[in-house]
């Protein structure tokens, strides 16, 4: 297994020095879609995950033509280095990263520590949207090896052929609550997929929002039997927290076969007759 792959992470220092370089585009993607307007990295564009990073008719990831338009109007072409960051230790930055990798963008990075660290360091914020020159973008064929659909998860559960990682909070895992406190409930039953291991997403991160070291991450997952010699499927409620865990496993620990199940608990927990485990 390779050591940490630093090419996918950049520091806040690096962003402060290179945010407006030619060939670099910094993008903020937040859980709270209004956070960008409360001040963002100067030069950064903002993407709204609820309208711009999904199909708003069918439940699905962003369609290729919509992503091409979004990237083009953000001043991004196929050679641009995209640097993502956001609130909540980069939850939705990782969601955007995962989708960009599905569509084959080569140079995507995450600002380690995200918005939390940038703010804590009292770095400059801007409330103005940058003026960008539109570019042309062409997506590649979707890489479905990064994404798990329901039948594959059902099969993995039955055959115990993959490590299932539930990254939600312990209260969601046990079924005590159906969604994070303060957020809408979107499933009918609580609990978890039988056999899944509870490894909350936040354990990937340090207190300052940065990712933990290779050694700490390896210890975290191996202690629960999640190792690189088996396929791994991560899930949460709607697939965004698990995209952060997918990022850590795939790009920081170097696991070859890791998928994000974006149907997640809002799919499984609504299925009639689906097996549910509650401790």
């Amino acid at each position: 297994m390779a050591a940490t792959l630093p090419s996918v992470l950049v520091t806040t220092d690096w962003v402060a020095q290179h945010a407006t370089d030619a060939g670099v585009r910094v993008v903020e993607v937040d859980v709270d879609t209004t956070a960008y307007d409360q001040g963002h990295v100067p030069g950064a564009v903002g993407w709204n995950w609820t309208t711009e990073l999904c199909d708003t008719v069918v439940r699905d990831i962003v369609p290729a033509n919509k992503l091409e338009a979004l990237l083009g109007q953000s001043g991004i072409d196929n050679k641009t280095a995209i640097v993502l960051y956001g609130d909540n230790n980069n939850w939705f930055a990782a969601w955007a990263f995962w989708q960009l990798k599905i569509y084959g963008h080569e140079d995507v990075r995450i600002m380690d520590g995200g918005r939390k660290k940038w703010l804590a360091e009292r770095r400059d914020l801007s409330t103005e949207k940058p003026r960008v020159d539109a570019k042309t973008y062409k997506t590649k064929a979707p890489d479905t090896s990064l994404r798990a659909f329901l039948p594959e998860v059902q099969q993995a559960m039955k055959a115990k052929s993959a490590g299932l990682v539930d990254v939600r909070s312990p209260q969601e895992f046990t079924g005590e609550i159906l969604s994070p406190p303060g957020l809408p409930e979107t499933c009918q039953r609580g609990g978890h997929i039988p056999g899944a291991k509870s490894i909350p997403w936040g354990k990937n991160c340090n207190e300052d929002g940065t990712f933990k070291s290779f050694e700490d991450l390896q210890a975290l997952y191996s202690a629960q039997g999640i190792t690189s010699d088996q396929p791994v499927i991560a899930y949460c409620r709607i697939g965004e927290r698990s995209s952060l865990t997918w990022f850590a496993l795939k790009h920081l620990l170097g696991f070859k076969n890791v998928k994000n199940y974006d149907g997640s608990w809002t799919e499984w927990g609504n299925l009639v007759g689906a097996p549910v485990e509650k401790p």
Partner: protein
Amino acid sequence: MKPEELTRRQEEIGGWRVSIETYKLGDVYHCTISNVDPGARFARADGATREEAESLAIEKATRYLAQTRKFTS
């Protein structure tokens, strides 16, 4: 502009632990409230003073948290 007077603290609202983050940017105070676990921002407000921004955000957070049900059986 640089963010000023940044504070982060944890409190309990309606039986849930939350993080309250407030900072001033220009003339506006921005307050956001996140659940501690898993850490999602779910209420925010702006104000001309810290007190105004925080009280508005806490009011929203209280309303949203009241809708979260616990299933203990």
